[in-house]
């Protein structure tokens, strides 16, 4: 199988800017991107630098960006990329992080986000079993975190996330999935504190782009993030913009069946929160001039609106029953 790998090369101490070098390969049909890079290193240019170890999607070392999308390269066949019809397979280092050399990035910020979520069990000291006892955790109690446990820290989702790309503050998908693993652990005693801290670490900054749902280990952090949001509202941690937006949205739709957009912004920020509303007033005025700001009072209800009320009522009843 013939292929051309176009690989980004860069030594920051020497090169002014990254450049690409192309390598023509002829490898077995089942060869992966990582096989290609290893072949180059062993046979063509031993100065090519990249991380790798297990070649079996266990160690999480060999993540790179392949034709614009982050991949675990040991799990990504060259043939799949060829089928996508590109003349060259372009390989660049992961996004967001500083390049150390060629395809190796400095993952320090990534690990800092992990440390921030305190990725270790913090049991209640009074509930820790004695010396000869064990803490029994049933499989169903660990079910919510089963997927989180598969994470191999490959950083593919971190590199592909549109929010981490522009915001160093956002904890990012993998750290939030790790947080979910401990928030849902029945042995942990810091559930509420963890959820409160997660709000500060960007729980509500996820933009639902779902890039992290292409996880090579099917951790799918976006689901974990949605679940953390749900738990945080249920826990009453609602004094923040994200939770208020979610609650205001749900209540807004309840009133007519359809979102009344012009009302949602002041409902999220608070009608009396002048210092937050004032800076965006010109934006509202510009949109109004273009006929893009319908008056909230002329908002039509959906047909058979009573059916919508019944659905909301059914769920209000379920949550009362739970209490």
């Amino acid at each position: 199988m013939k292929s051309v790998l176009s690989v980004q090369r860069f030594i920051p101490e020497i090169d002014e800017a990254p450049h690409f070098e192309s390598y023509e390969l002829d490898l077995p049909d089942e060869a992966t991107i990582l096989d290609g890079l290893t072949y180059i290193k062993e046979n063509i240019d031993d100065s090519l630098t990249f991380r790798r170890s297990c070649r079996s999607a266990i160690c999480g070392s060999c993540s790179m960006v392949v034709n614009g999308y982050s991949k675990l390269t040991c799990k990504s066949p060259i043939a799949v990329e060829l089928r996508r019809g590109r003349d060259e397979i372009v390989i660049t280092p992961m996004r967001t992080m500083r390049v150390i050399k060629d395809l190796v990035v400095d993952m320090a910020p990534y690990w800092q986000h992990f440390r921030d979520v305190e990725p270790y069990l913090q049991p209640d000291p009074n509930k820790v079993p004695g010396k000869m006892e064990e803490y029994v955790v049933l499989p169903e109690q660990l079910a919510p975190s089963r997927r989180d446990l598969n994470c191999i820290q490959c950083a593919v989702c971190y590199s592909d996330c549109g929010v981490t790309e522009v915001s160093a503050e956002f904890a990012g998908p993998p750290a939030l999935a790790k947080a979910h693993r401990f928030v849902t652990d029945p042995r942990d005693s810091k559930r509420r504190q963890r959820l409160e801290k997660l709000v500060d670490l960007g729980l509500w900054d996820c933009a639902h782009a779902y890039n992290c749902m292409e996880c090579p280990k099917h951790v799918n952090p976006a689901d974990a993030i949605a679940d953390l949001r749900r738990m945080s509202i249920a826990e009453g941690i609602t004094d923040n913009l994200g939770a208020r937006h979610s609650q205001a949205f749900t209540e807004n739709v309840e009133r007519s069946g359809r979102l009344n957009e012009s009302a949602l912004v002041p409902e999220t920020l608070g009608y009396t929160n002048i210092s937050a509303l004032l800076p965006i007033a010109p934006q509202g005025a510009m949109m109004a001039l273009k006929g893009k700001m319908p008056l909230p009072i002329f908002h039509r209800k959906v047909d058979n609106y009573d059916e919508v009320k019944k659905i909301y009522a059914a769920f209000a009843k379920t949550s009362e029953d739970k209490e």
Partner: protein
Amino acid sequence: MEYKPLRYAYFTGCVAKGTCPELHRSTVELCKVLGIELWEMTGATCCGAGVIHDENPELQIALNARTFAMAEGQGMDIVNICSTCQQNLGQDAKALRDHPELRARINDILKDSGLQYTGNVTVKNLLWVLVSDYGLDRLAAKVTNPLTGLKVASYYGCQLLRPVDETGYEDPDNPTSFDNLVRALGGTPVDYAGKTRCCGFHILSVNENTSTRMAVKRLQEAEEAEADIMVTPCPLCHVSLDAYQPRARKLHDAPGKMPVVHLSQLVGLACGIDPGSLELSRLMVSPKKALAAVVPA
């Protein structure tokens, strides 16, 4: 050649009836010209946008099950004009199809209103309907005003493509439908890094700074690829990229102007619908200059 008639339950979504009325109106105009019959679902609720799901997943599924039951009652599939609607309706339709016990639980709530959903509705974005159901050859034959020489940055965005298990119409790492459609209209698609990356809309009211920074990045990526114009299948992307463009550029010191039109507007122009009926004048960044060569004066 005889074509089988195309009829859909038309789910407008909230934004095409609010902030982007030009999207709804241009969609109706376009479908009239193409002979696609739309039954507007004036009884449908908001899709929940993932936001209701964040607070109460089953409440969102129940609201959408009601919408599906209405379409099912008409024997029609649903067409929508918004990537967020597509993702949420698509995801919830799959959940209801794959999990009979969930469907039974939800149907129990709908029973009170005399509604039942058996799981047989397919949800499609207008882009997919044009490319797959209508067909690009048939569309090309309707083009009276080819977009010759126009460099178009198709903005697939993120939610139309992912999660691939739930909404998968095409390879999210190498989508081609939108660029093929642009070719059928006579335009020239440009390849650019941001075409499948997020516009930031869903955190616009929670973290405006980060959200607008994402939007600016997408605009700049299209500019770097020398696009004349961007086109989006989603009114939420449109709010981020067009309605908020002047503000986003100001916040991040990124001067410039990139016109962004709706999918229905671009196809409508190529099919000879006059710019007035497509309400191009509602766009915040005027596409006039970019379209001067292809729009009849």
